[in-house]
């Protein structure tokens, strides 16, 4: 993998040392161009018109679904386009959860979760009078195995992230799905931080649902994915009602369209999906194995360099996803991020939509540096040097 060649496709990187890809990645010229090209030369609504241009747009849209399906080892009808991971998870909550979770049932998630994989389940449990179990973590932010075994007993729905967006923990989701299935529960995997970084195969994981966002993997905002097992999706009610999800309507009733259209009501963000297709092409041309090995190497370097900074405390394990969240002495995360910004380094500070985890760790907020395929060691050196300055000023 030639990082310099990749960087040439991302002009924005000349302006900033971008270490916030866990929030959203940058997009290469190829993705940006595919969106312009769509609007310039191919723009029509999809799945509606019968003229040539409309058919072409429908085909292009449908091809991206096939690409996304191949990308994670799913069937074409098992890929639903949403806006983002949050919408995908809410779709499962509304479509499967509200239909199947009853009073006295049990929903289980973990303290590591992003709010998007926590709040929908908390709300569902309250609505239905189900219990809500939150699996705890050990000192390295690894899932507490014995707590997991205890809480998963009798569960109906288990929701877990494939990679924590704060601690970087990569839980063994394959094993958790197996455990969930032994209890007769379905398993929902939030893979927003994993799919961008390594080969993912839904059949091998064995999950019932898996969610991710195009914008964290070189795609535009507005195109996210829900994978669901075909049988489960078939059994679910629509999430939104209106156009496209309908087969026929009369004044008495309506009949739902088949998969995947049943869950894609309304005109979709076609251009975003087209751009997402270009992002998948870009990642495929590098190869996800190569993405993984490059990112793992750079993540180790990030961990080592930050670990050397006096007083800097890294949250989570050494083996991790491509991000490091930390605290630095008494320096407030806002001040750290703002001082790094003065050296033109972009990092995230705050609770990263993971307040239960921060509360558990006893800190209001943290600072997070995250990397992707276009980052290089020199940028991490720059970050470490800049953090040394912060430490001297606030230490």
């Amino acid at each position, binding site marked *: 993998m030639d990082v310099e060649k990749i960087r040439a496709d991302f002009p924005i990187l000349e302006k900033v040392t971008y270490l916030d890809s866990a929030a959203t990645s940058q997009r290469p010229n190829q993705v940006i161009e595919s969106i312009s090209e769509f609007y310039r030369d191919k723009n029509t609504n999809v799945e509606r018109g019968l003229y040539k241009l409309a058919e072409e747009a429908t085909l292009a849209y449908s091809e991206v679904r096939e690409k996304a399906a191949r990308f994670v080892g799913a069937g074409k009808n098992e890929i639903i386009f949403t806006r983002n991971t949050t919408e995908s998870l809410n779709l499962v909550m509304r479509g499967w959860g509200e239909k199947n979770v009853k009073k006295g049932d049990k929903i289980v998630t973990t303290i590591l979760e992003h709010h998007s994989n926590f709040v929908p389940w908390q709300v569902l449990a309250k609505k239905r009078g189900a219990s809500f179990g939150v699996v705890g973590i050990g000192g390295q932010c690894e899932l507490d195995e014995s707590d997991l075994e205890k809480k998963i007993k009798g569960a109906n729905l288990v929701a877990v992230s494939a990679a924590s967006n704060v601690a970087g923990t990569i839980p063994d989701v394959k094993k958790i799905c197996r455990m969930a299935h032994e209890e007769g529960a379905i398993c929902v995997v939030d893979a927003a931080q994993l799919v961008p970084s390594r080969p993912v195969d839904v059949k091998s994981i064995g999950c019932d649902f898996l969610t991710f966002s195009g914008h964290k993997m070189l795609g535009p905002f507005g195109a996210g994915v829900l994978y669901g097992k075909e049988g489960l999706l078939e059994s679910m009610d629509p999430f939104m009602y209106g156009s496209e999800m309908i087969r026929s309507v009369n004044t008495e009733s309506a009949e739902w369209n088949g998969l995947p259209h049943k869950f894609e009501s309304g005109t979709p963000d076609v251009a975003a999906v087209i751009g997402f297709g270009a992002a998948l092409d870009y990642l495929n041309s590098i190869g996800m194995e190569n993405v993984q090995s490059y990112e793992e190497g750079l993540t180790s370097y990030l961990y080592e360099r930050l670990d050397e900074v006096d007083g800097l405390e890294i949250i989570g394990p050494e083996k991790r996803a491509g991000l490091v969240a930390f605290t630095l002495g008494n320096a*407030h995360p*806002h*001040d750290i991020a*703002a*001082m790094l910004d003065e050296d033109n380094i972009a990092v995230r500070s705050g609770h990263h939509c993971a307040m239960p985890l921060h509360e558990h760790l006893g800190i209001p907020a943290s600072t997070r540096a995250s990397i992707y395929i276009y980052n290089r060691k020199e940028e991490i050196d720059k970050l470490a040097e800049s953090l040394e300055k912060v430490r001297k000023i606030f230490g």
Partner: protein
Amino acid sequence: MDIYQEFIIGLYKNPKNKGTIDNPDLRAQLYNKSCGDAITLFIKTENGEIKDAKFMGEGCAISMASSSLFTGYLKGKKVGDLEKITKDDALSLIKIDLSKNPSRMKCALLPLEALKKAIRPE
């Protein structure tokens, strides 16, 4: 532009007017959970004037420096004039241009927000 001028860092490390006031005439607590900033403002009045103002809290350098400066600014003000204090008044104390940093502007305005809450309790 450098936000972290020496006097800001100085006030962060050695704040002024930090502490509590027993039986304050005005008091308000503000908590911004998203960034962890928390401030409690205490005001003692005498004959319609602010006799003493103090704050307690945790937060970033901007919010803490601003709290030090703002409590100092309040001393001697007439209670009736508190409502007239504007955002610009509060921002002028900190002497750095935050017009392009809306998120940090919130930090700087934290003590003013606390004052507003104190004089108009919900």
